[in-house]
């Protein structure tokens, strides 16, 4: 392999010398390497990449990275290889890969992309990881060593062993050893199986599984034993993972439902436009990101108050214009708010677009928190979980500790009595509805990080929201929290063996049966208010 590689290099060097005898001295060898890559037929791409790697050129990393990202193109007329800095729109910004000099914009019609496919990209990742093994930051080294797992081939063993000898960080050493072991298991090495026995990494498991199926009997037995011990460790991790999935789905349900728990649960208004208030919150996030381009994190944080205000204002308008006239007529309220929900959806379609909008996830919310190789918690959902709990705590505080909360409770328990005590019931109605709507807006801000921001966003959550509130017991915030989290967990527990469709149906049937038995939900309101 390495002979072949150096041979190619030699040939290229010769070639460039032959073709450009006069200018060869000053001419950049990188140019020939890149043109060689651009012109290589599919079967020769690998050689061309190797040539670039073994050239030792310090710009090689940048070139290969650009190549992997489809950012290497050729100008049709001149044949020059260029780096594409920005490939959006019709004119692309390009730069010279040799000098890094910006060459301005060029029409995409003039450019031919240097083709790459997944196989080459996989190898490229291995090569880049190899280059990164020399990075200063041990985290980068560990990540690149992890990337190497499953990508080691004969040509990489030697350099990796050399790397292992000089590596000091224990975690990185561990990874390199695993990466080497995966290769060696494939080669039939028995000791390597023991190295992998403790690993939870999916690629280690894949290598062992392959060994079990292989022809080498001794290896197969040893691998099977190693797999068994891994399987046991995995059980626990899987249970933890499912619990996390359940809590995370539950937190989404709680967020979507908690605003409804106030407007429907506490005030008794059946608000079918609740989903659209969530949608407004999500669109506010999108709007804020348009206002602060390039700063998705800041925009997201500012969206929290903004989303609350927008949805609360919409809530006040709905309450003043429609709901207040339909007090005590639940059926008419249901129909009228359903109409409002349709109007709001179509309004968004007409004014903004029927297409979904892109809401960018800030860097600190992407990826996952890695506990071990088998268990990692996705960050965006972790944040949403925390956010749901904070919103819940905030609402509890408002309802229990503030004058507004006191007045709300008074008005909902006995309207006439509260009024005679000097509470302005109409004002309390407005404030309560605004609060519930605003919280729906907050849910929208959070959901924009998990799902599509489009006109149909609200519809997907309205039924779930009512389900949670009714199951938890109308008028009880704690009930909503417990109901949301438990429904989420039940759903995720059922999903692996029942499938997503059936799991949803089972949960619905369960709730119907439950409501038959306990019509007032998990935590019914007690006392006279319940009868009122």
């Amino acid at each position, binding site marked *: 392999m390495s002979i072949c590689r150096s041979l190619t290099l030699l040939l290229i060097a010769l070639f460039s010398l032959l073709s450009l005898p006069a200018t060869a001295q000053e001419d950049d060898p990188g140019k020939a390497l890149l043109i060689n890559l651009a012109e290589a037929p599919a079967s020769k791409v690998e050689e061309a990449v190797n040539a670039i790697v073994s050239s030792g050129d310090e710009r090689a990393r940048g070139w290969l990275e650009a190549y992997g*990202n*489809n950012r290497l193109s050729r100008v049709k007329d001149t044949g020059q290889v260029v780096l594409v800095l920005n*490939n*959006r*729109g*019709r004119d692309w910004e390009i730069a010279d890969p040799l000098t890094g000099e910006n060459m301005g914009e060029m029409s995409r*019609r003039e450019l*031919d*992309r240097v*083709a*790459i*496919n*997944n*196989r080459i*990209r*996989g190898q490229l*990742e291995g090569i880049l990881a190899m280059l990164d093994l020399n990075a200063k930051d041990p985290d980068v080294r560990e990540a690149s060593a992890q990337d190497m797992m499953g990508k080691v081939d004969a040509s990489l063993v030697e350099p990796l062993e050399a790397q292992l000898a000089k590596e000091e960080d224990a975690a990185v050493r561990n990874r390199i050893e695993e990466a080497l072991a995966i290769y060696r298991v494939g080669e039939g090495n028995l000791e390597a199986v023991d190295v992998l026995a403790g690993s939870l990494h*999916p*690629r280690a*498991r*894949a*290598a*062992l*599984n*392959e*060994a*079990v*199926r292989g022809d080498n009997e001794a290896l197969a037995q040893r691998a099977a034993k190693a797999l068994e011990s891994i399987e046991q460790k995995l059980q626990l991790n899987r249970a933890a*993972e*499912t619990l996390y*999935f359940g809590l*995370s789905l539950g937190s*989404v349900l709680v967020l979507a439902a908690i605003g409804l728990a106030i407007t429907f649960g506490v005030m008794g208004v059946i608000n079918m436009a609740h989903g659209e208030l969530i949608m407004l919150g999500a669109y506010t996030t999108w709007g804020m990101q348009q206002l602060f381009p390039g700063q998705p994190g800041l925009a997201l944080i500012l969206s929290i108050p903004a989303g609350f205000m927008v949805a609360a204002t919409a809530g006040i308008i709905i309450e003043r214009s429609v709901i207040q006239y339909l007090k005590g007529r639940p059926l008419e309220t249901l129909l009228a708010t359903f109409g409002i929900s349709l109007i709001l959806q179509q309004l968004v*379609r007409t004014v903004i677009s*029927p*297409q*979904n*909008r*892109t809401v960018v*996830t800030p860097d600190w919310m*992407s*990826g996952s928190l890695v506990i071990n190789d088998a268990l*990692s918690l*996705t960050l*965006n*959902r972790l944040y949403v979980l925390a956010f749901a709990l904070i919103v819940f705590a905030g609402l509890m505080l408002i309802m229990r500790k503030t004058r507004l909360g006191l007045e709300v409770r008074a008005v909902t328990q006995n309207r006439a009595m509260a009024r005679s005590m000097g509470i302005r019931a109409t004002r309390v109605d407005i404030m309560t509805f605004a609060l519930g709507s605003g919280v729906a807006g907050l849910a929208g801000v959070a959901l924009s990080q*998990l*799902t*599509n921001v*489009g*006109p*149909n966003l609200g519809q997907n959550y309205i039924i779930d929201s009512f389900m949670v509130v009714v199951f938890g017991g109308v008028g009880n915030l704690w009930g909503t929290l417990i109901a949301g989290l438990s429904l989420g967990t039940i*759903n*995720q527990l059922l*999903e*692996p063996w029942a*499938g*997503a*469709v059936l799991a*949803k149906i089972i949960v619905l049937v369960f709730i119907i049966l439950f409501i038959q038995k306990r019509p007032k939900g998990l935590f019914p309101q007690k006392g006279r208010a319940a009868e009122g």
Partner: protein
Amino acid sequence: MNLKKHVKLGLSALALSISFNSVAAEDPIKVGILHSLSGTMAISETVLKDTVEMLIEQQNAKGGVLGRQMEAVVVDPASNWPLFAEKARELLAQEEVDVIFGNWTSVSRKSVLPVVEELNGLLFYPVQYEGEESSENVFYTGAAPNQQAIPAVNYLMNEIGVERWVLAGTDYVYPRTTNKILETYLMDMGVAKEDIMINYTPFGHSDWQNIVSDIKRFGSAGKKTAVVSTINGDANVPFYRELGNQGIAASDIPVVAFSVGEQELSGIDTGPLVGHLAAWNYFMSVDNDANYDFIDQWIEHTGNDEAVTNDPMEAHYIGFNMYVEAVKKAGTTDVDAVKDAIIGVTVPNLTGGYAAMMPNHHITKPVLIGEIQDNGQFSVVWETSGLVAGDAWSDYLPGSRDMIADWRKPLFCGTFNTATGTCGASAGEMAAEAE
């Protein structure tokens, strides 16, 4: 006096313009557009309405067809399947349109079928679908399973070396039929049953944690694994997001999607998705002047610099041009004459080749596999060496193997059983029965 004069002048101008209009509009070719502009499907269908409108505008600028201008008649079936049938009836019976371009979902097409057959209309259907149908009155310009699903699986099997398969789809007729075809095909190719995992999710599914984690586990069995996704529309965004967050890179477990186009990608940050695949018959990134011209026209028409084009738009482009050619060939817009004339009509597509209308009312298409790039576009990594003719009746489903469709005389049948030598019920009758 002065005022009177003005009024008189105005009136005569008005009269003139009315008479002028009535001359020009004496006999326009009416083109019905039956795409949802509201409701859940508006996200996909609105652009198709705009596409047809743009094509009509361009044709009119070229002087129309047979010296007649074309006129769009737009109705909104509002993503409501029975309403599709009502609106189709309105188009054909009241507006008396000459041709209809429309529908997206299979269920909406099935609802329209009996109406189009009863009133003898023409319908151009631009979306990839599950096949198993060929109607005298419908022209299928989207891909049949053998023009998308089968070549994509071949690519994964032969080029990537995939041995273990996840067939993930939304729970409705297109994914279910496609997956049934693919399952049979894979088993025919020697894939064991335990190496195929099939998973269905409801429409608009947004919580993919468990499924993605399942796929990850399924993929760690030591064989190269790929996901073949017939997940529809919106649900793809959270699915891909979860894939990215759980760290499944395209080089570990590639996902090849049949319903993810440029439109769907425009709603997400594609960074973590680079390298995942889609199979279509057209990509916006295809390096071809006809395509670039089309994109430029589209951007101009929408007035949006970021506007994207996609596969069903190309299907309408092809279908529209085929209709125009067929009308020219027949010399009339009479439905039966056009139906006869259109078989064999060949027009350029946007990928540098030609599309021909086959006797089974499906067209020939190239099959392209594209990888998602970080700019929300696909780059073509593989394509079939030649054009693939759409197969109305799949060879991989029992009961459908022996069926053929041929709308040339003397056979003139969409459900001809070669084993028994008989012609079955028409597509519209079958659809009406299913209701």
